[in-house]
């Protein structure tokens, strides 16, 4: 075990930061350009260049400054907004409206997202059918590619998917950063079990009714993607629920608590990702010998993964999404990215670099398409 790697904290070395960025530079170039070198549309070239440059600057800054969260959050928030923009633009181009009709459901023209996965498992096992009106291998937001991407990410990153891959998480992450100090400080620890209750209810109702009930009745992100055409009282109530939950859990509460309340208190996929945190090799570790128990990390954690008791015992709960916020606020560098089996306080730089490479590569590759599309659309509009 190379303990000498702990001698110097991460960051502030230009040469090393550039060296660490080089592999990301090459891989993202291939993915963002799609392997092509000739383009006919100047706006597309400019969009690709800006996205490529922006991503690599963020990754470079992570290594140069030694800070993770604020640079991750920039890409994460841009990803959320651009994905919604891409989805809405595609849907409006296809249907001339953000709403979908019964005909769209019958013809399986609904874009698939990872939040449906918890509801699909039981019906798929018992009825051998997928209870979602989307395409399995279609060109746009198909079911199979989304499942494969999520499965790969959740096995490798665990709940890290919620901070490095989920294209909705950026919304409440963004709103949780609006205020410098929280208005609501005390929130009962019990609420962090709510996503499991939601998971239990939606999995059960979906299994009994063979309808993706979370999408049908609860999902707050319907407000920024697509929703059922309002034709009767029931669809009007559904629209009211979507808008209320988006306003409450994604905008107002995150702004007032500085916590990601939708991810913490509602998302059923977050509950599954919490369980998958048990198998992922990457975890956040606390070096008790360096920890002064100032509890700044507990206050900073946006997902209630850290508790005062846990910090004193040197443990981080399975609710952790590895966003890096606690790592950045720790003045003693006692809390750090780690790998299971490696003792806390050792190989800090190596484990951080390895985790950043894997997680950043995932979000960069996953988000590139929608960000390029959004930037190109803005350039087309401006030019």
């Amino acid at each position, binding site marked *: 075990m190379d303990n000498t790697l702990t001698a110097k904290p991460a960051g502030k070395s230009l040469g090393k930061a550039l060296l660490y960025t080089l592999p990301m530079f090459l891989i993202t170039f291939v993915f963002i350009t799609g392997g092509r070198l000739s383009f006919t549309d100047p706006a597309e070239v400019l969009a690709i260049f800006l996205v490529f440059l922006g991503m690599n600057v963020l990754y470079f800054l992570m290594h140069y400054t030694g800070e993770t969260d604020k640079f991750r959050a920039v890409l994460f928030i841009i990803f959320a907004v651009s994905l919604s923009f891409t989805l809405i633009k595609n849907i409006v181009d296809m249907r001339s409206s953000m709403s979908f009709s019964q005909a769209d459901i019958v013809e399986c023209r609904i874009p698939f997202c990872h939040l449906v996965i918890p509801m699909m498992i039981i019906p798929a096992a018992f009825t051998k059918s997928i209870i979602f009106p989307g395409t399995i291998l279609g060109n746009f937001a198909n079911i199979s590619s989304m499942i494969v991407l999520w499965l790969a990410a959740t096995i490798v990153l665990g709940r890290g998917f919620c901070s490095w891959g989920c294209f909705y998480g950026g919304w409440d992450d963004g709103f949780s950063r609006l205020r410098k100090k929280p208005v609501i400080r005390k929130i009962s620890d*019990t*609420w962090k*079990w*709510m996503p*499991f*209750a*939601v998971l*239990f*209810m939606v999995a*059960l*109702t979906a299994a*009994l*009714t063979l309808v993706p009930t979370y999408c049908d*009745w609860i999902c707050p992100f319907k407000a920024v993607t697509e929703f059922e055409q309002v034709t*009767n*009282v*029931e669809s*009007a*109530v559904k629209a009211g*629920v979507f808008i209320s939950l988006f306003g409450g859990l994604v905008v107002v509460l995150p702004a007032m608590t500085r916590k990601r309340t939708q991810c913490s208190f509602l998302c059923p996929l977050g509950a599954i990702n919490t369980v998958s945190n048990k198998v992922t090799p990457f975890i956040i570790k606390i070096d008790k010998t360096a920890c002064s128990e100032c509890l700044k990390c507990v206050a900073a954690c946006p997902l209630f993964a850290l508790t005062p008791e846990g910090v004193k015992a040197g443990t981080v709960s399975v609710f952790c999404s590895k966003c890096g916020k606690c790592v950045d606020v720790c003045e003693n560098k006692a809390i750090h990215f780690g790998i299971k089996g490696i003792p806390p306080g050792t190989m800090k730089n190596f484990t951080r670099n390895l985790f950043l490479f894997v997680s950043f590569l995932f979000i960069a590759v996953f988000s590139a398409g929608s960000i390029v599309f959004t930037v190109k659309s803005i350039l087309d509009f401006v030019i």
Partner: protein
Amino acid sequence: MIDSFILGLSSGSACLVTCGMVMFPYLMAEASSVKKIAIDLSVFLITRLLVYFILATVAWYFGQSVFSSDLLRNYVPGILYIAFAVMLIWYSLDKNRKKDCPASFISKIDNKKLIPLFLGIVNTLGFCPALLIILTKSATQGSLMKSWISFLAFFAGSTLWFFPVPLAGKIRKKQVIVTIGILATGIAGAIFIIKGVIILTGGIING
């Protein structure tokens, strides 16, 4: 039927928490084996089922008389759903629910064999908000058979929580499971608020 089952399944945890502290010592203290606990539990559950059938019949009968006019039939159940669902959410959030068990008097019963029977009756007639919701639903059903089925589904859902009782000592993370169940009760409350709003705004009963 599905919403009755879901209501039973979600509210069963609150039922267990409310009366668990009173019931478990009596169901388990006298027993030396899983078999004995299973027999007591069976008596308790059969009693609950019988009381539910009686309640379903009474609710349906009163429903036929009370909800005879369209105006009452289209609006009163909606209001009741919302009121009881709000109570259910409050019930799931109330940290003092353990003190409210209606079965606490059973400590005065001398004949221990009758305790599961009494527990079954008292636990059922505790009139928790979930029971009030299912009574409302039963009262608005078109036939007695549908009313029975609603209660049967409610019973089936809530009973699932009692099956692990003989193995209670061996289950790890009991508190987490019960916490999730209690939170699910609140979600069930939210579902019935929405159902109530739809009935009130659309006038569609059991739609």
